[in-house]
C-alpha cells in the first residue's frame, strides 16, 4: 500500500475517535486520581507497617480494660508508655483508614459531585474521629 493510500485508509477507517489530549506520561507525572504521585500509596504502607506491632500491643492491652471499671482504664492509660502507644495507634489507624477508604471511594463512585463529596466527607470524618480519640487519650493521660 502506498503512503498516501495508507494515510487515506487511516483517515477513513471507522473506529474510536479520541478527542482528548492526554499522554501516558502526563498521567504518571503526579496527575493521577488525587493529583499526588505515590504519596498516598507510600503513606498507606508506612502506616500499615507501624500498625503491625501497635495492633499486637493493642490486642494484648485490651485485656487491661475489657470489663474493667472506668478508674482502671483511666489509671492504665495514665502510664506514659501506654498513653504514647495509644496515641500512636490512634493516629496510625485513622490515617490508614482514611487512605484505605479513599481508594474504595475512588474505585466505586465515579459521578463527579458524589465522588468529591464522599472524598471530602471521608477526610472530615476520619480527622474528627481521630482527633476525638486523641483528645480523650490525652485527657485520660493527664488526669487519669
Amino acid at each position, binding site marked *: 500500500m502506498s503512503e498516501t493510500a495508507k494515510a487515506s485508509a487511516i483517515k477513513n477507517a471507522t473506529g474510536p475517535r479520541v478527542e482528548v489530549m492526554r499522554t501516558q506520561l502526563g498521567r504518571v507525572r503526579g496527575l493521577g486520581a488525587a493529583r499526588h504521585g505515590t504519596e498516598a500509596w507510600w503513606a498507606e504502607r508506612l502506616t500499615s507497617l507501624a*500498625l503491625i506491632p501497635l495492633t499486637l500491643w493493642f490486642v494484648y492491652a485490651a485485656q487491661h480494660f475489657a470489663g474493667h471499671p*472506668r478508674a482502671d482504664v483511666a489509671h492504665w492509660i495514665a502510664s506514659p508508655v501506654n498513653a504514647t502507644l495509644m496515641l500512636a495507634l490512634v493516629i496510625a489507624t485513622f490515617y490508614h483508614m482514611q487512605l484505605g477508604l479513599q481508594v474504595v471511594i475512588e474505585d466505586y463512585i465515579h459521578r463527579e459531585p458524589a465522588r468529591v463529596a464522599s472524598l471530602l466527607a471521608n477526610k472530615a470524618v476520619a480527622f474528627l474521629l481521630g482527633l476525638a480519640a486523641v483528645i480523650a487519650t490525652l485527657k485520660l493521660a493527664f488526669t487519669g
Partner: protein
Amino acid sequence: MTEARDALMVGRTSDGRLVQRPISPHLQIYKWPISMAGSILHRATGIALSVGTLLLVWFLVAAASSDRAYANVSGFIHSFIGVILLLGWIAALWYHFFAGIRHLAWDVGYGFSKPDTDRNTYIILGATGVFTLVTWIVLFTRL
C-alpha cells in the same frame, strides 16, 4: 470520546487504525478462585474495621468523660449486638492484619506466583482462625 480514562483503552493496529482495546470480562464471569475471595475479603474487612473504629472512639471518649457515659458504652459492649459486633471485628482485625502483611510482602516482591498466592491465602485464613479463637476466648473470659 473525551474521557482520558476511555482514551487509554484505545490502541493502534499494525496498519495504523485506531481500535478500542478489549477489556477483561467482569467479576461475575469468573469462577471464584480462592485468591479472589481473599482479596475481596481484605477490602471488606478494611471497611468493617473502619466502622469498628467508632466503638474505639466511643470507648475512649466515654472513659474520658463520665461514669455515666462509661456505663453506656460498657452496656453496649456487653449487650447481645455488642458482643456479636465485637466477635466480628476481632475476626476482621486478624484477617486484615495477616492479609496486610502479605500485601507488604508483595510490595517487596515476594509471593507473586499463582501456587504461592493460593497457598498463602489458606495460611492467612488458618492464622486468622487460630488468632480469632484465642482472642475470643481470652477476651470473653474477662468481659
